């Protein structure tokens, strides 16, 4: 993300040396993706209003729906994890606790994103 940094920062070699620009950019990229994905998600849920288990399962098993659902859950956990890290940084001022919470949130976000993707695959590939 060096292109978002002030050229003077590179020239003088000063700056926080952290990864704020990358974090900020990924929060925006996932937000843009989530605009479309959230609208799709809500519309699909509304269309399932009268569906029983078998027909809801069949709707999600369609190739595009399965792909979009994996995209949605991946972007969602990525975005949530980035956002929660900022919230934790703002309110938790005990260094070890702050660090531990951020790591814990990241690990669970990855685990849950994998679990969602596998669940969708299982639905999509079921006989």
């Amino acid at each position: 993300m060096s292109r978002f940094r002030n050229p003077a920062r590179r020239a003088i070699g000063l700056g926080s040396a952290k990864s704020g620009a990358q974090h900020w950019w990924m929060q925006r990229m996932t937000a843009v993706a989530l605009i479309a994905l959230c609208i799709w998600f809500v519309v699909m849920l509304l269309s399932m209003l009268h569906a029983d288990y078998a027909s809801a399962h069949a709707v999600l098993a369609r190739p595009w729906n399965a792909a979009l659902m994996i995209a949605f859950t991946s972007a969602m956990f990525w975005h949530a994890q980035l956002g929660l890290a900022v919230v934790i940084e703002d309110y938790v001022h005990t260094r070890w606790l702050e660090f531990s919470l951020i790591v814990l949130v990241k690990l669970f976000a990855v685990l849950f994103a994998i679990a969602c993707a596998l669940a969708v695959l299982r639905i999509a590939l079921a006989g």
Partner: protein
Amino acid sequence: MAQTGRPLSPHIGIYRWQVQMATSILHRATGIALSIGTLLVLWGLMAMASGAGAWIHFEAFITSIVGLILMIGWTWALMFHLCNGIRHLLQDTGMGYEIPQFVRSGWLAVIVSLALTLAIWAWLAMGGVA
């Protein structure tokens, strides 16, 4: 904080309420609420993948009184965070920073999100006829 004797800004005790601060706080609050809501998406997908037996428990929860209240809350949280998030992204491009524009877009996010929530649940309550 260093005791400089200078006035603090914002001075919480005498700060006038403004829509800008409400939307800012609400964006964070709805972001946290939606992060908790991700667990419901996880549960729903896991239940659907597990089979009809597990799905019944999920369905029973989201159609219970507590479940419905949570679902209505999450609907508004998502609609507000979505509208205000789009506002955030437009402001990131440098748009809308004049104070009157900032106030107007803030109210717009609040009102549109409430209208969308109302429209979704009115449609659901009528059994989805459209």
